[in-house]
Each structure stands twice: as C-alpha cells, then as structure tokens.
C-alpha cells in the first residue's frame, strides 16, 4: 500500500468516527481527557483508593491509566483489524490493493489516539509532581512492539474471519477476559504467588508491566520480556502472512 492511500484511509477513519458531531476531531482530545478526569475523581476522591506503597492521593488513578491507555490501543487494534476485510469489502472489490498492509491504517489511527492520550497523561504526571524518568525513552519502542503483536493477531483473525464469521464475537469475548488477566485495575502483588508466577506467561503483561515500571516506578522495563514480545509478535505475523498468501485467492473470492 502506498503512503498516500494509508494517510487517506487514516484521515477518513477519523472523519467517520466523528462524522456529524459539532466538535469533530476535537473529540480525539476530549475523550481521553474526560476518561482520565473521571477515573481520577472516582478512584481518588469518591472511593479513596490507594496504590499500595504510595502516599500520593492520585496514585491509584495514575497506576490505572498507565495500564489502561496502552491496553485500549492494543485491544482496539485487534478488534478493529480482525474485521477489516469485511468492513472494507466495498473498497477491496473496487480498488486493487495489498490486503496484508490494509490494516495498517487502523494501527496508525489507534496510534494517534494513543499518543494524544499519552500526551494528556504526561501533562498530568508533570503537573501533579509525579514526573517522568529517563526510561521514558523506551515508550515508543514498547508501543511499536505491542502494536505489531496486535496487528499480527488481528491480521490472523481477519483472514480466518472471511470464512468463519462468528470469530468477531469470539474475539470480543477473548479481549474482555484477557483484560482481567492483566494487572491494570488491580495490583499484581495482591494475587496469590502461584497466579503471579503464571502471570509472567501472559504476553500483554509484558508490555503493561513495562509501562507501569516506567510511569509509576520510574524504572527500566524488563527487557527480556520485551524481547519475548517482539519475537512472539513477529512469529505470529509471519505465520499470518504465510497463511494469508496461501488463502489470498479464496479470501478475495469470498469477499
């Protein structure tokens, strides 16, 4: 896919998202802002939730957002990529294009939303005195690894979904369950030791934990886990690519 088409599809994606609304693309900024404000107020002021080991009033809200922002980008990328061939059926049948690179506009679109949310989150961290550590430089790389993993899973499901339509619902259920297998709302330390030892085999934990280490504890991420994430993401992407190449003719015929 050429870059012009990629940018055009991304632009159209944003236009479709907020079509008919008065504030239009301003919602890209408003949504994360509202989201963050609600979580901070509800957890810090209303529920009085505290992050274990932290005396900071908004500690729990900051912890929650450190996991929730990347998780939203990750889950949205998988969910939207997995239906991309069916959603873009009219376009695919009219324009000759490379299907493996078609989902890239979703990755780009979700990345823009992620970086806007991250920007707001960072402003909050700086204003509230939490600050940022040097390990922050790894955030773009971690995000890239996470999005490649999401793209790989989404692309695999998108290919299969052309033949098995029920997969859309299955993906929704899996993402919902997967969310609760990550220490985003809760802290990993409260889990029994046996569960904690299983948790390290969850690929999404590898990047969620990295963000939490960077933003909450201002430490370097676990690099071994990140290399695992990169390897797993690329292996799944390679398998998805080969599978798609084998089924490409059938995929186009079914569409």
């Amino acid at each position, binding site marked *: 896919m050429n870059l012009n088409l990629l940018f055009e599809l991304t632009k159209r994606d944003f236009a479709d998202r907020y079509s008919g609304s008065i504030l239009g693309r301003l919602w890209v900024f408003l949504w994360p802002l509202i989201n963050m404000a609600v979580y901070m107020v509800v957890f810090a002021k209303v529920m009085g939730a505290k992050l274990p080991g932290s005396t900071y009033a908004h500690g729990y809200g900051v912890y929650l957002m450190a996991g929730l922002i990347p998780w939203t980008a990750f889950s949205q990328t998988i969910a939207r990529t997995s239906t991309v061939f069916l959603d873009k059926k009219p376009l695919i049948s009219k324009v000759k294009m490379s299907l493996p690179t078609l989902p890239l506009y979703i990755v780009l679109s979700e990345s823009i939303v992620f970086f806007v949310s991250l920007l707001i989150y960072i402003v909050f961290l700086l204003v509230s005195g939490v600050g940022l550590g040097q390990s922050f430089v790894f955030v773009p790389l971690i995000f890239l690894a996470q999005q490649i993993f999401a793209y790989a899973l989404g692309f695999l499901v998108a290919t299969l979904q052309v033949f098995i339509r029920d997969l859309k619902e299955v993906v929704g259920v899996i993402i919902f369950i997967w969310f609760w297998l990550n220490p985003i709302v809760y802290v990993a330390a409260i889990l029994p030791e046996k569960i904690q030892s299983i948790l390290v085999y969850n690929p999404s934990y590898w990047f969620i934990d990295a963000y939490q280490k960077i933003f909450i504890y201002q430490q370097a991420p676990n690099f071994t886990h990140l290399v695992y994430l990169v*390897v797993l993401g690329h292996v799944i992407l390679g398998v998805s690519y080969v599978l798609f*190449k084998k089924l490409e003719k059938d995929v186009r015929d079914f569409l």
Partner: protein
Amino acid sequence: MMLYLVSVVPLVVLYLLGIKLLVSQVQWAYRGLLLIGFNGLCLSLAFGLGSLLWEAP
C-alpha cells in the same frame, strides 16, 4: 543511558537502509517475510542493547 542512545542511532540508520533495500531489491513473492524478520531482529536488538547498556555508566 547515554551509551544506549548513542548505540541506538546507528541501529536506526541501518534499519531504515535495510528496509529500503529489501523493498526495492527483493522481488520474491514472500518478501514480506523478510521484512517481518528484519523488523523483528532490529527491534529485538534495540531491547537487547537496552538490557546491556541502559545501566552502564
């Protein structure tokens, strides 16, 4: 940290050159696999360097 940043810059340059070369020169039907492999290798190297050099003085 500085050592890490200094080592990553040539890696990024090599990465961009490698991708450009693969896209322009390789005509194999499965060249996407080479791009995926090369991308994975570079990203793993970036994290591997992080593990080796981040804490280095």
